[in-house]
């Protein structure tokens, strides 16, 4: 098992990317694509952001300009599924759809689309009523998502189930529930679904973001987490992940293990 780092930076929520999308200026987007690829990202998240006038057009353009400079697979991040489909049509490598909650109409739109384009899906353990707190409720959603994958001819291996971490300052009681959910999600099927987290959420609004991110990431990895949407340019975080992988005996130790981790 190898840990998939999903680079979070190409997101219109960040000022530089938001402006680049508005002006159709490829430079900042391409720079971040290269920088994140060099840091070892397995996927690059692509989000047009809230200010884009035409999400479908912007998504297609972003995918195009990123693919001009690197061939790292993309995680197409949007709540607009037409925008995601527009991206999937031109992705050169199998992409990751970010994301689909546990709601029937959305599942019916996204899962067949994933099948058609050979994409994988980040599936969220929530529905219209919001994010549940207990591990049990999160796992119940995960179970439904795994069953839906089977229904639409996908393997559990095509799912990255996200049990949804919340900021530890305002929703502290969620953090251990997510860890327990991660443990149980790994036992839902064989092969098990992948799991992922929007890691940076855990530290939102705190002054200790890098420390909290990497501590929680290591804790989650011991519970079976095998990917995260994260700041792949946070060297200490990447070092912590590389180290956790070695200590979990998931990758073979060598003196330069942290370097090798970034090269694969």
């Amino acid at each position, binding site marked *: *098992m190898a840990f998939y780092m999903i680079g979070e930076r190409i997101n219109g929520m960040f000022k530089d990317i938001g402006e680049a999308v508005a002006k159709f200026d490829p430079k900042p987007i391409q720079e971040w694509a290269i920088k994140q690829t060099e840091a070892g990202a397995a996927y690059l998240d692509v989000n047009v952001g809230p200010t884009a006038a035409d999400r479908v057009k912007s998504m297609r353009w972003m995918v195009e300009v990123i693919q001009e400079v690197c061939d790292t697979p993309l995680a197409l991040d949007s709540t607009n599924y037409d925008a995601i489909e527009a991206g999937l049509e031109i992705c050169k490598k199998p992409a990751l759809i970010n994301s689909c909650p546990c709601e029937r109409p959305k599942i019916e739109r996204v899962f067949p689309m994933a099948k058609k384009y050979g994409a994988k899906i980040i599936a969220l353990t929530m529905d219209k009523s919001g994010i549940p707190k207990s591990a049990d409720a999160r796992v119940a959603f995960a179970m439904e998502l795994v069953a839906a994958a089977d229904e639409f001819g996908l393997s559990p291996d095509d799912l990255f189930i996200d049990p949804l971490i919340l900021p530890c300052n305002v929703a502290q009681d969620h953090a251990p529930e997510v860890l327990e959910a991660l443990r149980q999600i790994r036992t839902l099927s064989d092969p098990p679904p992948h799991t992922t987290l929007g890691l940076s959420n855990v530290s939102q609004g705190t002054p200790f973001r890098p420390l909290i991110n990497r501590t929680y990431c290591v804790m989650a990895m011991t519970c079976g987490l095998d990917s995260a949407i994260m700041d792949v340019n946070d060297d200490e975080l990447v070092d912590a992940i590389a180290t956790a992988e070695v200590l979990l005996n998931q990758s073979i130790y060598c003196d330069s293990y942290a370097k090798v981790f970034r*090269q694969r």
Partner: protein
Amino acid sequence: MPAEILKEKFTGRVQEVVLGATKDEGGTRAYTVKLGGSSTLPFLQFEGDIPNRPVIAFEIWDIKPDWHECFAEYYSDVWEDPVAWAKKAEELGADVIYLKLRGADPELENSKSPDECAKVVKAVLENTGAPLMVEGPGNPDKDNEVLQAVAEAAAGENIAIGLAEKDNYRGIAAAAMMGKHCIIARSPVDINILKQLNLMITEMGVAPEKIINDPLTGGLGYGIEYSYSIMERARWGALIGDKMMAFPVVCLAGPEAWRAKEANAPLEDAGPGWGEQKPRGIMWEAMTAAALLQAGGDLVLMRHPEAAKLLKKHIESLMVPNVY
């Protein structure tokens, strides 16, 4: 009830390494040999491809070897002459010739100079068609000098030179790069050093398609299980995408098997029930080799022609596709 065949989906594969160069490629070899390339566990062709079968290399020395007398029957007329011996190895079915330059050992009287070694290599190349691997005498300083000269003499032939080890790889890697040859990276039955050495060699600028790993295989009855499990783990690492574990593996089955008393002891010194030395020695080597194939050996170094014959037959049967 229908049975579903379980197939592992791997993301990685073993690097393919080409040994030798034909006339069109700037060398003089009659053919080239491809090592590695597998995207599945050894011989599990139903869940991945094995583009290249494991190959058999024959061990020859540049001086008369100190081997068991049973080898005289095959080699006594050639083992004073590495060129004649190399030709004999080809006749006996070697895919690759593995030349050990023991004569350059500085501890020996009349230790061969790097120039003399280069001449031997050149002469072997001029008189044979099989791809060549060359191992130095095993003394770090002398290895560096000898392999440098050998790499120059064999320019264009894409031979493999070694052994590069953790404390002595720079000179050998440089020589391999200068002559565009492959490098044999040896680690002492230690998977962590194996990985680190591969990284260090890669960082010197050696291309991945030029690296062959020697995990220092143990012989049957003398630690083969350590090598076996290390090779399994290396293959697994390669298949799940660890590029620093993904190099073809050479197993020194012959030399290791023949270090065992069980291979060499005559009937009168043999343990109870051991039987005659001749079949016992051959089987000791063949079984060592067969086990290492199951662990993922890509090139097996053999010594006894009868053991090599058995192994060849075994490889042929293992390469019959087992696709469901």
